[in-house]
């Protein structure tokens, strides 16, 4: 596994080059972060097609916003924040537009990501939690994914979503209780 400090230094070097117009440096950044961005987008949206759109838009936005990136946080953190914002907006738009039900979307993710060899209790629980996540409102899903799946702090979540830390905690608490109820329904 690569040393995170080395990776951050490499990112810093590439960001500086990309900011001065080096497109090859930006391409290198896209190549090295594309899988994490896409993975996060999939967990936030629960849909591979939508996640690909989200990842693409987030990376495009990153290039456009690069001149404003001050380097206060790691490039990856900044990029993931952009991804969260794009995912949140897209998910809400998709929920309004799409004729597909959230249940259907959940089934697609399930079929895509669970192979026969993964059958078992843990896989079953993961399947149920995914379906339950799909039924959470977009805002609650975002909170649960960022906190419990991605391991962000309340502060990072509050900062990214533009809410207070206490609001993040209260909403997360509600989301946990709702998720538990949904999980029981999926037994």
């Amino acid at each position, binding site marked *: 596994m690569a040393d995170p400090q080395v990776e951050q230094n490499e990112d810093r070097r590439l960001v500086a080059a990309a900011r001065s117009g080096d*497109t*090859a440096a*930006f*391409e290198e950044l*896209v*190549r090295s972060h*594309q*899988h994490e*961005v*896409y*993975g996060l987008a*999939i*967990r936030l949206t629960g849909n*591979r097609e939508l*996640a*690909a759109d989200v*990842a*693409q838009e987030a*990376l*495009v936005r990153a*290039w*456009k916003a690069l001149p404003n990136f001050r380097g206060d946080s790691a490039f990856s953190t900044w990029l993931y924040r952009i991804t969260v914002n794009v995912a949140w907006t897209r998910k809400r738009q998709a929920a309004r537009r799409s004729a597909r039900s959230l249940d259907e979307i959940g089934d697609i993710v399930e079929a895509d*990501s669970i192979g026969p060899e993964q059958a078992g209790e*843990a896989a079953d*629980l*993961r399947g*149920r*939690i*995914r379906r339950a996540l799909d039924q959470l409102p977009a805002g609650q899903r975002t909170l*649960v*994914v960022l*906190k*419990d*799946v*991605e*391991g962000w702090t309340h502060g990072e979540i509050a900062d990214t979503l533009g809410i207070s830390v206490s609001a993040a*905690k209260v909403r*997360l*608490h509600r989301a*946990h*209780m709702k*998720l*538990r109820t949904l*999980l*029981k329904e999926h037994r």
Partner: protein
Amino acid sequence: MSRLRCRKVRLVLPAHVFGGRSLSRRDEAHLGQCLVCQADAATYRSMQTALRSLHDEGADAPPWLVEKVMATLGLPERRQRKGALVAAAVLVASAAVAVWGRRRLRPVG
């Protein structure tokens, strides 16, 4: 078993399991005896484990993603630049071979 205490404990269980918030002594004592609240706590723990495990399920980005991002921004992709360079090199090499071949075939004298 007090139903009121059950309700109170179940309210604080998510913060206890997910946020590491400590329980009051009375709540802790209740949890130690109440099977219903214990089952609830177990559900939250399973949820926590399952959610964490979602992070480990790697997802590879679609193979076209980098190309599409660069194309959307109108930026040249390195692979394309490399391809163009290789094509140019092949062209130059073919021309050189052709010229060399013609010279060799030219009758002497």
